[in-house]
């Protein structure tokens, strides 16, 4: 009984008529991608390096040349050693490489007893200093393989470009935002406006009406998925090295999960504001803090790590990183996919069980 198509049409009209909300939803991914991509950046864009070299021998010049020719470094010239502090303070350089007086001798030693190069960094921005230092070190170590006992190579993302890190994070966040938050608010709106009362007094199982609600939001999220992937690939040069099919498949699963979560919230909340608060506090906060989007899960205290296991975004972001950045095949993320699938099933079962077709 009832015409599923006309329910979907009705929901689509609701969304289309609310122009402002629709615009916000379509623009959020663009804004976030631009913001994280260009403004909030921890990646190494440009390290201004000054060099202190008491003896400019051939091997020193070679090392400096390698730094200067690197697209992420700018060679600011040789300075005397008493200028280091002034240059850093005035911001003429963000790093100074100090070559030892007997650089050639130390660099030639199989196991150097003392450092051949000292890197002095302006660490007023800890993020750029840490990543810059590591990057500069990797350039210099390349100069002579034996110069350091520890060799460091940054695989998959050698420039430590933050886009690689935040694109999966943004995807994990946006889909929860749109699917879970917007669907739950739209279902609860029917309760608050009293229309749910009329819908219940009809032969249609209310679950069908609610499921019809999810369809347009699913489509809206698919548009967002396309926007994000296109922006990532063409504007931010994220390699999307894994198969695009696998990335899309995992994302679609995550969309369904987010919709199921929205459904669950809507069965618990009676007022739109409550649905909003639940979505914002119980979903957004853990996603931002615990999903590994901003802070690595491995660095968290054990308790928070344990909590992060139940944050769906954590598994999604992990899977997308593997697929997108490491370029692993779909088979490499089966564990994440299974966990997401299990969570989806649980959300759907619980919300169907909890869905009340009475008013009390």
């Amino acid at each position, binding site marked *: *009984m009832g015409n599923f198509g006309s*329910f979907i049409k009705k929901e689509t009209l*609701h969304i289309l008529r609310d122009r402002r909300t629709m615009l916000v939803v379509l623009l959020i991914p663009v804004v976030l991608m631009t913001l994280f991509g260009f403004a909030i950046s921890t990646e190494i864009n440009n390290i201004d390096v000054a060099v202190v070299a008491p003896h400019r021998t051939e091997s020193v010049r070679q090392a400096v040349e390698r730094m200067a020719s690197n697209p992420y470094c700018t060679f600011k010239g040789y300075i005397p050693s008493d200028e280091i502090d002034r240059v850093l303070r005035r911001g003429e350089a963000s790093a100074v490489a100090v070559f030892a007086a007997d650089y050639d001798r130390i660099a030639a030693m199989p196991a150097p007893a003392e450092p051949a190069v000292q890197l002095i960094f302006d660490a007023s921005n800890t993020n750029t200093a840490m990543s810059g230092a590591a990057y500069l070190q990797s350039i210099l170590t390349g100069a002579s393989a034996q110069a350091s006992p520890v060799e460091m190579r940054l695989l998959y993302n050698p420039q430590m470009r933050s886009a690689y890190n935040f694109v999966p994070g943004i995807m994990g966040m946006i889909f929860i935002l749109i699917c879970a938050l917007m669907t739950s608010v739209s279902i609860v709106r029917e309760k608050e406006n*009293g*229309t749910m009362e*009329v819908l219940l007094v*009809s*032969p249609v199982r209310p679950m069908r009406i609610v499921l019809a609600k999810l369809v347009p939001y699913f489509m809206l999220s698919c548009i967002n998925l396309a926007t994000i992937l296109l922006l990532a690939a063409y504007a931010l040069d994220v390699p999307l090295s894994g198969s695009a099919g696998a990335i899309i498949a995992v994302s679609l699963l995550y969309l369904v999960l987010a919709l199921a979560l929205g459904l669950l919230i809507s069965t618990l909340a009676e007022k739109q504001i409550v649905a909003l608060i639940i979505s914002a506090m119980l979903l957004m906060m853990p996603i931002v803090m615990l999903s590994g989007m901003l802070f690595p899960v491995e660095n968290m205290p054990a308790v928070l790590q344990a909590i992060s296991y139940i944050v769906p975004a954590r598994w999604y972001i992990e899977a997308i990183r593997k697929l997108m950045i490491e370029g692993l095949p779909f088979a490499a993320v089966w564990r994440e996919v299974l966990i997401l699938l299990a969570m989806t099933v649980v959300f759907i079962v619980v919300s169907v069980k909890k869905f009340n077709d*009475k008013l009390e």
Partner: protein
Amino acid sequence: MDARYAIEIDGLTKRYGSMTALDRVSFRVERGELFGLIGPDGAGKTTLFRLLTTLMNPDEGTAAVDGLDCVASYRQIRSRVGYMPGRFSLYADLSVEENLAFFAALFGVRVADNYDLIAPIYRQIEPFRTRRAGKLSGGMKQKLALCCALIHRPSVLFLDEPTTGVDAVSRSEFWDMLAELKAKEISILVSTPYMDEADRCDRIALINEGHLLAVDSPRGIVSAYGERIYTLSGGDMYALLLAARRLPHVRRCCPFGAAHHLSVDADFDAAACRRQLADEGFADVALQPAESGIEDVFIKLMNHE
């Protein structure tokens, strides 16, 4: 359950926590009857509607709609009744025709199938069919809501305060429409806080604070409970009200719009009272015998409770 009745209620009780919203309410609505539920805000009218439309379960007692038990057969009832809640419950962002089409789809019918039933009502709002429902006037909203509640040709129609917040002309039109529906053998339970609308019903139930006060035809109720009534007006109405309450043989005096209603016993002497009021300084007061109305009965029954 007796299928001869559109609605059959027996000892229905509903509590919200410690508050009893409905207390052992019993009555029957015949098929094809226009039955009015008259009572002030908070009387329990909406609770009764929610019990009968199966949105809530009663704590005690039984209720049947169209011969079906409200608890056991609630799914069947939901496809047979039309329900118009007290609050405007259509989609404000959808147009008139989109709302109607959606509610038709909800009940698995096409608008054309039952157009004859809603035509007299829908024709009045058809010129605005592309307008958003939220932009309609109060009277037009009610007409659209009624169309949406009727589109599946229900056997019993539940209208919870359909005329609240609607202007006097639209109210009168609305009752005309209900009379037409009754002629098409749809049983109607309608609630209203307006006592003057009671006369438009076949039978009415007076309800207050969850208790049923009386059930009968409007005329039957007045003749069973009516008293001698005088209207009193003129000058300082509030002072007059206080003075009238001190008059001999006056049981009750209540403000009633433009005039006070005095309910009096057999020994009441109108001429003596006019003199007494004139002595107290009330010039030009009009004291006239009047017909007892539903509202007089309601106040009497309410005070006896």
